[in-house]
């Protein structure tokens, strides 16, 4: 991709995404870390648009920024700690070292390989092609993904429900306090 527009946007958006990811690590409070994470998702969606993947960009916005961001925020509010800070464990140095090592390997592989590149301007529109692929060639993973989603939904609800919180008992002849409750 050449030209002032794409190159400038690439550098600005990459700086935004990497900066937001760094701020997730260094943020003072955990809510700010989540907001920086959402900013990273939005920046990544913009990068997808730059790569002419319009449907994937919109899906990323919908699912990640809209749904997973809200999910993480709700779970932070449901699990309050005494200090709402993203504190590190004693594995800070090894963790950062491991991250840097993987980063180095990844950058090395990316730069020193000659990738077979095709020219052209990318995709004009992707929705039709993705839909076609999802329903013809990748139909089986599509169905498995839907089963997975149902399983995940049921699992999440069952896990969060607790032990019979929402059970409704019929009025019985024995007063409730004398009915033996199983633990």
């Amino acid at each position: 991709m050449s030209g002032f527009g794409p190159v400038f946007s690439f550098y600005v958006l990459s700086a935004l995404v990497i900066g937001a990811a760094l701020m997730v690590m260094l943020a003072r409070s955990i809510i700010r870390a989540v907001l920086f994470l959402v900013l990273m998702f939005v920046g990544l969606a913009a990068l997808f648009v730059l790569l002419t993947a319009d449907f994937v960009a919109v899906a990323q916005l919908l699912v990640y920024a809209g749904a997973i961001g809200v999910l993480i925020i709700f779970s932070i509010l449901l699990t309050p700690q005494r200090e709402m800070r993203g504190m590190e464990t004693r594995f800070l140095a090894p963790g950062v070292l491991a991250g840097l090592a993987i980063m180095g390997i990844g950058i090395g592989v990316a730069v020193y390989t000659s990738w077979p590149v095709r020219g052209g301007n990318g995709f004009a529109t992707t929705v039709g092609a993705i839909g076609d692929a999802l329903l013809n060639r990748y139909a089986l993973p599509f169905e498995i993904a839907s089963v997975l989603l149902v399983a995940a939904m049921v699992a999440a609800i069952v896990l969060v429900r607790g032990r019979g919180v929402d059970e409704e008992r019929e009025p019985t002849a024995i007063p409730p306090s004398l009915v033996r409750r199983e633990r």
Partner: protein
Amino acid sequence: MIGLSEWYDLRDLGNPVHALLQWIDGWGDGSTFHWVAYIVSGLIGAAAIGLFLGVIMLFLIWLERRAVARIQIRRGPNRLGPYGLLQPLADALKLMQKEAIAPRLGDRVVYTLAPLVIFIPTLLVFAVLPFGNKMQVANINVAVLYIVAVGSATPLVVFMAGWSSSNKYALLGSMRAVAMAISYEIPMVLALLAMVLWTGHMDLNGIVHWQQEHHVWLLFLQPLALLIYFISASAELNRTPTDIAEAESEIVAGYHIEYSGMKFGLFYAVEMANALAVSALIATLFLGGWWLYGLDRWVPGYLIFLAKTLLVYNLLILTRGTLPRLRIDQLLAFAWKYLLPLALVNIVVVALEVLLWQQNGLAQEVFFPVCVVVNVALSVALIVGYSRAFDRRKIMAPRRARLVQDPLAYMPQ
């Protein structure tokens, strides 16, 4: 006179703009000044949207207050200017000169940022709407899905506003608003999906062109989808009857309690602008946008579009003035247990009809009226039958009191 597309053909304001951009493109040797045309087109689009929103929001505030007042058998503002037309100006001036009292906060950056960021999804939605045949700031291939995606960022900003206010009621109100917004997104997407299935286009100008080619408003073909979308969108907008999250008599204005001055003015303006965006979207998708059975050859397309948008906005005002407020658990139950199955059945019916139509190559003049009759009958049957079959007692009168766990465990220091 009818078929002009010169720059002075003001029936479609895109004509002078296109002529200007082509002229700029032709500067130099035809390829060095593309970027000037690009920047100029962006500036014109942004200025147009800004001007339109600014002017029409003043009018809408006045319209809403007068209309709601007449519904409530009172007059509404009639002191400032003829028929109170200068009232929104006075409101804006008042908000600008107010002292912005901020509470002692933990997170001042998020507090200041929330009213600014909440305007972004609205502006992004307006950028995709076709005001006329060539009057669209951005023609995106996945416009319908883009609108939903951009609108799904609003709950996050509402949470930002509620959390940073360090106020129990603000947090509670924002949590309720977030829960309602994400619940009503799904029937909304499914209703819009029915539209996309019918027309085969996801870009809004394509949908309007489809309606023009087939000489039918999508409203007639899909009354159930319109109803579902209208209810879901008005619930997303936090308007009465679904404004439990921010009503003044319920929760002391919910997530914008601690905002005063122009920050509150921004929240208020965004609420109106969102309502206008939803009305414009309904006008485009269901009512034919800038096309009106050939009337757009004499009357400019954007005036027709404006008229339809204001019609739908009046409907929103009507529901606001006449319906009582619903509780949050009633609203959530309504979204998940009632609207979602209806939307799913609607999608199945639409898919069947589109399949029948395309596979058999049926003539459109025969098929569409049959479709209209079948859809209307089906919608009425579904709504009435499902309401009856639904065990209403469980929702409105639970047999015993139940403790509902709400996410209010932590308050910021």
